[in-house]
């Protein structure tokens, strides 16, 4: 696909890009995901729903259910950490993009990528601490989760959320999720959410818009 790029357009974009100093967009209301690490059965229906929705070949996986296990037989434990793009408040990928293909939406803070501008340089892939932007070997461009913006705009929720058999994954205004004022089945009646669990990068790097119901072994003091 890269061969079909309009080079003049890209050139112009690079020029435009260089004149801008990066200040993160502050959206009207930042949206983000919430995942219950404990109640998740790890079925990966969300991953497959996402692959189907986005027409991805084997390789890139926008949503990744990570399996964590520990302890020694027979005192063992296991939980899941489920992440796609965290649509960070200060996305590390965005300033690395030489063409400005990556942008943050002003209304809901979704970090999106304009595939017609992507030249496949993969800088964003290297910069993301969570592995969200991924290279699609078929299109030779980087692709990433856009929170199913088309579904959000139609008044629905992303495919991964609507796929969740256990109702442990949800999306919404991240501040409300963190305060506990957002109605969602992902958070049980006795659950509290946290910004960060073990097995993920420090949230202070990019201020990711995600919350977790953590496993007791995953809580970081």
């Amino acid at each position, binding site marked *: 696909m890269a061969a079909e790029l309009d080079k003049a357009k890209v050139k112009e974009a690079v020029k435009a890009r260089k004149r801008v100093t990066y200040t993160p967009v502050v959206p009207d209301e930042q949206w983000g995901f919430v995942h219950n690490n404990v109640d998740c059965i790890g079925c990966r229906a969300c991953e497959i729903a996402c692959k*189907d*929705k986005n027409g991805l*070949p084997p390789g890139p*996986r926008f949503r990744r259910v990570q399996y964590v296990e520990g302890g020694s037989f027979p005192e063992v434990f296991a939980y899941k950490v489920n992440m796609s793009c965290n649509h960070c408040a200060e996305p590390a990928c965005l300033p690395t993009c030489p063409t400005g293909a990556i942008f943050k939406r002003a209304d809901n803070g979704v970090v999106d990528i304009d*595939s017609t501008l992507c030249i496949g340089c993969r800088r964003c892939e290297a910069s993301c601490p969570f592995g969200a932007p991924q290279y699609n070997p078929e299109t030779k461009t980087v692709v990433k989760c856009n929170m199913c913006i088309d579904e959000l705009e139609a008044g*629905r929720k992303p495919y991964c959320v609507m796929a969740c058999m*256990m109702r442990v994954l949800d999306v919404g205004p991240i501040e409300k999720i963190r305060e506990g004022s957002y109605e969602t089945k992902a958070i049980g009646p006795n659950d509290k959410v946290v910004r960060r669990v073990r097995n993920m990068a420090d949230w202070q790097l990019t201020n990711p818009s995600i919350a977790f119901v953590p496993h007791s072994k995953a809580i970081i003091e």
Partner: protein
Amino acid sequence: MKQDLQNRVRSAVTLDRRSFLKASAAGAAAGLVPMPGFEEKAEAFAYEPYPRDDDLVTVPTSCAHNCGSRHMLVAHKKGDVIVRLSTDDGRYQKDGEFGKDTEEEPQLRACLRGRSYRSRLYSPERLLYPMKRVGRRGESKFKRISWEQALTEISERMVYLKTKYGPQALVDQSYAGASYGVLHKSDQIEGLLGRFLGMFGCRTSSWSVPSYQGTTFSSRMTFGTIEDGNEDDAFAHSKLIIMWGWNPAYTFHGGNTFYYMRLAKQRGCKFVLIDPQYTDSASAYDAWWIPIRPNTDAAMMAGMAHYIFTNNLHDQDFIDKFTQGVDEGTMPDWAKGKENWKDYILGKYDDTPKTPEWAEKICGVKADDIKKLAHMYATTKPAALKASWSPGRNAYGEQYNRMAAGLQSITGNIGILGGCAEGVGKGWHSEAVAYPYDQFANVWFASIKSDRWAHIVLNYPNVKREEVGLWPRNDQLDGVVPNIRGIFWQGSDWFNQLTNINKEIEAIRKLESQGDSESLLVCMDSTITPTGIWADYLLPVATHFERHDVALPWYKGHYYIHRPKVIEPMGESKTDFQIFTELAYRLGFGPQYNPRATREYFLNNDPVDEAYLVAWWDKMSHHSHVDVTWEEFKNLGVYKFKQEQPHVAFRDQIEKGVPFQTASGKIEILSGQLANITDWTKTQYGYEIPYIPKWIEPWESLNSPKTKDHPFHMISPHPRWRTHSIFNNIPWLRETYEQEVTVNASDAKKLGIKTGDMCEIWNDRGKVVVPAYVTERCMPGVLVLHEGAWMDLDENGVDRSGNPDFLTLDNPSPAGAFAYNTVLANIKKSDLDHRPVWDKLATARSHVFRRDM
């Protein structure tokens, strides 16, 4: 033509957006704003041009593979191509709206396999044309032939074999892989194939069900029915759920069982898992994990019963009122002098009290833990002991299920909300049959234990009836062992899925050595399966996206899902009903086989299928008080029944005193039927089965001397990323998990095995090669290898895919249970080849995303 299809498939599967729009030209762009230019980029959708769901045609349908559940799929299509699939979001039911998801009418959200259907529908392994074998059997060489040639040759061979070898020559190995709808049904016992072969007058049926025959036997003997299950919403009301060998995070039994159990957890329910593995169910429900040696479950249960009896924790009122043969007081008059269960447990007959300490030596669970669990179970009300099927897939597996029924009875947890009598566990009774159903529904001239066909072929005529579990008859065919000359596989990958595959291969070779014309192997499927590779003819069956039907849950769940013809059948595929109808016309019984159809049916089945479905709907909706019409149902997509209270098996028996469906009207812990059998060789079981639940030493286990050569016990549970063997070829799913052997960390250390190392696993029956997953989550001495990998032999007969059924034994338990989990084996590091699937490029990325901290 071919190029055309490839393009169509490629654009459907990978959805290349730019070429998609180009191909579909101006019509597609209606409603979409063309890309205005980068300066306005923040306004544009990143993937423009992109067909949004609302620009596509929405068609609600369902999944259709052979699992214990059934969920909605919603196809979003453009022209005749499905662009993507979503699932139930609350909009497709009566009074539905987006997001509606109540405890009473929950959404029916599809699992990862269901979500991958598009990739299966358009897969390179899709069978599109009738094919005929040109090489040796199993050599994978076929040529395309016409339907005319295929059906002519098959029907001629059928007549020849029936005339020469008699009415038992053809084995029905239909299974639920192709169809589970009310109209198109591939089914082991009485599906479309069974009726077809029965009417033709040549059928050997396979009576034992691979998944749960031990449990079926137990449920029938104990309760007189296999409908001993609660609906899934009942689980939300338990205070204690004991998951015995049950992994609802992998095996979806009921549309929302796993979710209702989450609700139970939120309401304070405690969970226990008895299993050699710490499964994802254990972690999600925060269960107390009790690791147990495989195939010793009945011993542990006996130990629990001993504790309950000796500590007087049993519910004597319940026992007196509802059971037969639990103790001396509940023995029927005719059974004086027979053993009762309590005295067996206390050791009165054999001087061996089945104490927790006695059980500990067998099952490896500490006596204190057995006591603690027994105490919890007997004192928590209501408590659900869910005795799953897999511990029953063992030598004497039926004893485990019978023993569980004993525990469920003496604690009074039957027929109450939050309790559990499962068992088979079939819940709500659906009306499952829209196809013609008459006296030919299940006609057979011999009926065998399903995994004994190869044994018969190899040893014919020196085979005793008890070896193969011949079902008794009242005519001259009673006890006549069939001279098997052919197999029909309809929606069935049994060659890959039954036990001891090497023996099956030998049997095929023997048939082959007697000349091509003397046998017939036909495989009907939508996919070229490993079984198909061994067939003489491959017949392409239209998938459920390509025919009209209604889907129903068969196990738990109370709903019907409309399944319209979403797209036209691909290639030259036909529905299985069309194929059998046309074959029946050639064999002279077409109008009887499909009474609503003419011979036109092979070319156009739509009006006839509609007529069958309308007739079914009218009958069903009258019985079940459905409040929408057929036309409304078709517009909606799904009909969910609302129940006043969760369906609980045997509620009426307990609350209203309705008799149980056994001869005595009681829960038969002492089975009257079994107690009165005198000549076991004349029964379908062949060998004696105790009339009360007992512990019987299996022929292989970690306690047996055979561990000297084969020190590991291998179990082969269901994987999550396949349904048996279905979906093994799907790249999206292959990416999420790997076929691998689970090894305990301390065992692995001794053997020098690390995660990802290639290993060979072998015993006297076969050898497979597969990578290792080393973990603390599996008990020492146990290997876990998931069933259903597509066999892939190297030149020395070693299976490169890691299919456990090269190691399993084709010796079923007396009651018919497949002994899938009664296997000793050995393991070592290996430099032999492993191939994750038929193509060499396949690699799972699961290891990247998982495991230790």
